């Protein structure tokens, strides 16, 4: 029997592949989550909240002394559109595309060694 044909080697190769894919899933999630957090909370805090005129953010031109409500987009305050609605739509599109690109694994091949599953 070739090494590839050995059932335990096959199981090990499958397990390794699933584990590698799962770790890649985690890295991807952490990356998207971090970008979404910085964009959403950062933008909304800078543009959707009123800041003191002498605050560093206002001096740097990143924040304003009043919230950026107008012009409205789709009837939403300006900061809601750019800070929440747009990243939400982008995230949804990304997730939809990703759902077609993720690799499949034979999870059903993973079997319990029979350690006490109930009746």
């Amino acid at each position, binding site marked *: 029997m070739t090494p590839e044909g050995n059932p335990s080697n096959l199981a090990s190769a499958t397990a390794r592949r699933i584990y590698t894919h799962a770790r890649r*899933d985690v890295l991807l999630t952490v990356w998207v989550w971090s970008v979404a957090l910085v964009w959403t909370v950062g933008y909304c805090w800078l543009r959707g909240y009123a800041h003191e005129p002498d605050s560093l953010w206002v001096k740097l031109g990143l924040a304003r002394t009043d919230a950026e*409500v107008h012009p409205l987009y789709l009837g939403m305050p300006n900061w809601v559109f750019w800070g929440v609605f747009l990243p939400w739509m982008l995230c949804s599109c990304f*997730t939809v595309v990703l*759902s*077609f690109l993720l690799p499949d694994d034979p*999870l059903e091949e993973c079997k319990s060694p029979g350690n006490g599953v109930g009746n």
Partner: protein
Amino acid sequence: MLELGSNSGQVLVAFALYLVGVAALGIFSHRYLRRGEFLQEYFLGNRGLGPWVLALSVAATAISGGTFMGFPALIYSHGWVLMLWIASYMVVPLTTMLLLGRRINQLGRLTGAVTVPDLLRDRFNCPALGITAGLIILLFLPFNLVAQFKAGALVMREAMQPRPSSGEWLGQTVDERQHLILSFRLSNGLEIKQNLAPPVAKGRWLLEKTHADPQARRVHAVWHDGAQEHAFALDFPAPRLRLPGFKEGMDAGYLIGLIIFAVTVVGYTAYGGFWAVTWTDVLEGLVMLIGVIVMAVLALRAVPPVETANGTLTGMAAATVRLQTLDSQLTQGPGPGQFLPGTLAVSFFLMWSLMGPAQPSTMVRLMSFRDTVSWRRALFLMAIYFGIVYVCLPVIFVCARAIFPTEYVNRIGSRGSADSIMPAMIRYLTTDRPWLGGLLLAAPYAAIMSTVAAYLLTISSSLVRDLLQRSLGREISRGVLRSISYTTTALIGVVVFIGALNPPEFLQYIIVFTGSGLGCTFLVPILMTLYWRRATKVGVLLAMLGGFGGVFFWYLAGWLEGHAQSALKLYAQTLAHAHHDVGVVPPPPLWAQYIQTYLSWLPGWGRPRVDRFTPLYPFGFDPLVCGLFCSIVGGVLGSLLTRPDPELVRRYFPD
């Protein structure tokens, strides 16, 4: 006993149709239980969830009474800032499905685990882990269930719209807070007092102009805002039943609503198990989706147009402009009453995106999908689903605030509580189509049912599987297990029903408490269990206890502070009265003074909070930030200071 409102017949027929569908799915699922191993089937569906069932089941479990009752109340009260509050749902499909999905399903199959405590116990071969996890689940979830039962009963009451009670108006008075106190004697002899704050802070009730109309069962009051007088109509009290232990009786509509809710949801969960819960989740998920879309369209059309220099604004734009005119804080952060400062915005981003996936009920679903094709399709469906639901809800309730600019929602059918804005808005939008109102009311009801069913099953699985079967360490026959499982699920339902007879007042905060408590208890331990070879049982146990303690401590401190402040305030009032009246000075509440003296150094102590159930916010952050920090520190230190079992690492991690 209970006179129903004029349109309630059609509402209830439409509502009943939905309940029949749910019951049918429960019965159908029971037939499925005859296959295969009972516990695998009853609590896990034999790892056979397809894409639609997985996606809608995870979504319907995440969307609860809080989403459909508490969240709308917050949007109505605080405006657009709630979009930021809820924003992290944009990544929830990823954090739910990708962060854990593939690996937890693999490990679940390798260990043969049926529940999350099962998984922890088997991965580390440590019964203490399973028992601790089971006990923590048992501690948190009943709180949540009581709140959900209350929400379910409120929706049912709104569907019935009982007429106010007949009876006699005894008179009125005003207390020292300028609240109007109305006294009634109902037809069954119960004497009830109703308390009404002035509609604006400096408002004053004009007692001499208050009168009752017994035919219409309504009291007409008049209040003065300093410039002019305003009329205010208030219904007689809702019909009440005499019950032992309830001095003022019990709201009959609420009790009947609670009974109907409990019988249906406990019935189909206990009878049909996991399959009943997940299949009804599909029905409930679809009802919710259609419900919010129809409501959003109706709400946008119902907003009165606004004339501006550039033309007439309608729909969403008109609603936003109306909110800005009403209170500029409704269209910007942090919202009225400093609702969402930057630190809490960060906290809530963590809350929804990380706590949801770490709920045991969600993880069990991830352990039970059939294959990765189903999992990928479920990811696709969830992204679309959450996008629609969570964008529609703010639209509906920003419109609600524009349509009803005051906080007084009794005029549109509810009893004046912001938590009832969802059913009240449905009744308003479908005044001329009551059958549609019934179908739309099924949406929040569905949200509550799906969550309750999932949690009931999580609790009974913890009891039956984690604490009874695994801890006894011996085989129990299929027949006995079956009887124990049915009985336990039903018994928990009964216990929660009793708790919901006298429920806590606030819904959303209880849900946030249990969500963050369970999330912090399980997120880090599960990530360590799945991905870190170096993790040990001591590390995972410390991570679990650290997460639990880190959240619980700040809630406990918040409750202590709230009660101590109330006691001291009451004492100060009593002291003032004693001084004026007879000069007898009562002893001060020593426990409250001790608490105030010895705990006031805690960060967040003494800061204004929305209500007494809210926790302390250390340095402005939600307790979950502390919980996650403690969990990570405990997990890493505990693991590095001990050694993992090489045999277990070899078994569950590839070379």
